[in-house]
């Protein structure tokens, strides 16, 4: 029977891993819920952000926070550009999967072209630093990522709930025709949202660069679990995405602490299935 300290540490570790899931899930949840577009390219964008952070950091010694400040507006613009294509061709939810898959593969190929397929690790002095909280260790980078995820989730939630734009976005998602009848500028909203989503991907990418080792095929490593987080959390529900990420992270981590770690996905996804079947009304 594992000690309480071990369990506690596993919970801490799981919460932080979940924070990163939540961070990745945020942009995807927004675009899927509010734009009705399933954006596989979100993962590719995040990894591109990671590689750019790595490149700026290793080639030009740009500190990560500055790199993120540079990347975020660039990605916002990229999101606008992507959406221009979607809007022009009137891409629907159904076809968005294929289109964004293609974009993701193009991005993956571009990444491999510039950075080769070989592993890249952005070594920093503080990569393994952690805070001591009682008997537990809280790795600083992951903590920062988790806090960022929480902050972005809260800000997004508040934005959607309290501002005019936020309400307009939600109205558009629910009933586009009516929203337009009420004077909501649907086109502008959609562009804004796409840009924000892409910007979030850039932020997630910055943390991925600091925490994980990079290879082009890593794009696909996150798809399953982040999809699960997005759907469990409820589409366009930023706080839900965060909570779902935490839930999955913790359940995986605790499983790994208690039994053979290879069982972890079984537990996290079984929990998902049970939640879905027994009481998804809160979604």
């Amino acid at each position, binding site marked *: 029977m594992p000690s309480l300290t071990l369990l506690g540490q596993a919970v801490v570790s799981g919460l932080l891993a979940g924070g990163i899931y939540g961070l990745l899930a945020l942009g995807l949840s927004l675009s899927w819920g509010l734009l009705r577009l399933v954006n596989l390219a979100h993962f590719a964008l995040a990894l591109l952000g990671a590689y750019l952070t790595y490149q700026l950091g290793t080639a030009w010694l740009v500190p990560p926070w500055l790199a993120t400040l540079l990347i975020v507006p660039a990605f916002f613009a990229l999101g606008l550009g992507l959406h221009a294509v979607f809007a022009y061709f009137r891409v629907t939810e159904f076809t968005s999967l294929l289109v964004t898959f293609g974009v993701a593969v193009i991005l993956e190929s571009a990444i491999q072209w510039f950075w*080769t397929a070989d592993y890249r690790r952005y070594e920093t002095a503080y990569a393994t630093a952690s805070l001591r909280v009682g008997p537990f260790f809280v790795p600083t980078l992951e903590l920062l990522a988790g806090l960022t995820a929480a902050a972005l989730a809260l800000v997004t939630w508040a934005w959607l709930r309290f501002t005019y734009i936020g309400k307009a976005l939600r109205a558009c998602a629910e009933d586009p025709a009516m929203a337009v009848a009420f004077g909501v500028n649907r086109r502008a909203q959609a562009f804004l949202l796409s840009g924000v989503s892409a910007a979030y991907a850039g932020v997630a990418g910055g943390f991925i660069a600091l925490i994980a080792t990079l290879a082009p095929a890593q794009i696909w490593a996150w798809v399953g679990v982040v999809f699960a987080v997005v759907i469990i959390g409820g589409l366009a529900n930023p706080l839900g995405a965060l909570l779902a990420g935490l839930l999955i992270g913790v359940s995986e981590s605790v499983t790994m602490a208690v039994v053979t770690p290879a069982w972890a*996905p079984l537990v996290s996804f079984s929990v998902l299935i049970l939640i879905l079947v027994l009481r998804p009304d809160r979604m």
Partner: protein
Amino acid sequence: MISPRGLGGRGGLAVLLALVVVTGATAAPSGPPVRIGGTLALTGPLAPTALLHKIAGEIYVDELNKANGLLGRPVEWVLLDDQSKPDVTRSLYEKLITVDKVDLLMGPYATSGILAAMGVAQRYQKMLPHHSYGMPHLAKYEMHFPTAAFGPEPNVTVPARIYDALAATSNPPKSVAIVTSKFPSAQFQSNGAREVAEKRGLKVALYLEYEFGTRDFGAIAARIKDARPDFLWVGALGLDGNQVIEAMKKLDYMPPRQFHLFPAPGPLALAPDGKLALSHTFFEAHPPMLSNTGAARLVPLFHDRAAKAGVPYVNVDTQAAGSFAAWQVLEAAITATKSLDDKAMAQWLKKNPVDTILGRLRFDGSNNYGDDLSKLKQVQDGKWVVVWPREFAAPGARLLPP
């Protein structure tokens, strides 16, 4: 036709011979190319390491063509991308044989792909040299030739070698924790590590298997820390090893000694916390192995090419060297039999060892395996150096204790 008598007897003959030798030595290979077909994971999750094999192969073929080619003919490597998928690998090898009609085969990267290719080679009775295969007991084709020289029972011999090396230090470990990915070849050898440890009376404080593709190692690191082993065996493949180390460091813990099975060499050597980590290798680019056949020539070439290709870690390590060795085996068999006949070459290889960059390889044991040429290397001052067996250690290097 100049008759020797017409040129003044023996002297004329000597001149003639000298002429033939000189022109023969500097003649560029000519005639129809010898086409050697193979695939590599140029895209997909296995691409990072397959890239090293691509560079190694290209270097070798270029060097062949700069010299005499094979049998005096230029060499062409017909390389296809199997996208890290064994089913694509199988059909591409069929394409190479039945459509492109290549003369000979070279194996792909990694165990699953090699098994797929082996099936095809078997059906067409073509010999298959390969460089990155980790499950010897499954390789039952009589014309396959592995240069990943694990010997027929790596799950026994590799851990034994490691424990031997550790036992020879002043403070041998008494307990071991084993954490392994469930990637087939890694799990296979890590399981062996457990059995051998138990046989030797080492306490197995922890044995964990994690899914290949695990993202978060926090809980696993916590369990290792809890177990407080003297020695940590990480059955890692690629990225995992680094992630385990980093996860442990975040818990302010580092086991006294650690061994990584199949890590990505660059990241681990360069990791600030990879100090004194041990790993498995067949070759490192320093004496005495630098004097192995071909090493002196190939190592600097790899350095250059890798740098040009933008690869972060440019030293020849076990993967690239394995590739060179596979090509050397192929070349040796062709040269010795003066033919491109698979059966003749295979028969020759079974009877004759080949001197390669990895040392002397022989293929006459069970499942065509020879000796286990595994060596232990350690990160010292940001570089990998071989420390065991002693006769292969870098000059003056030894297994540094924690």
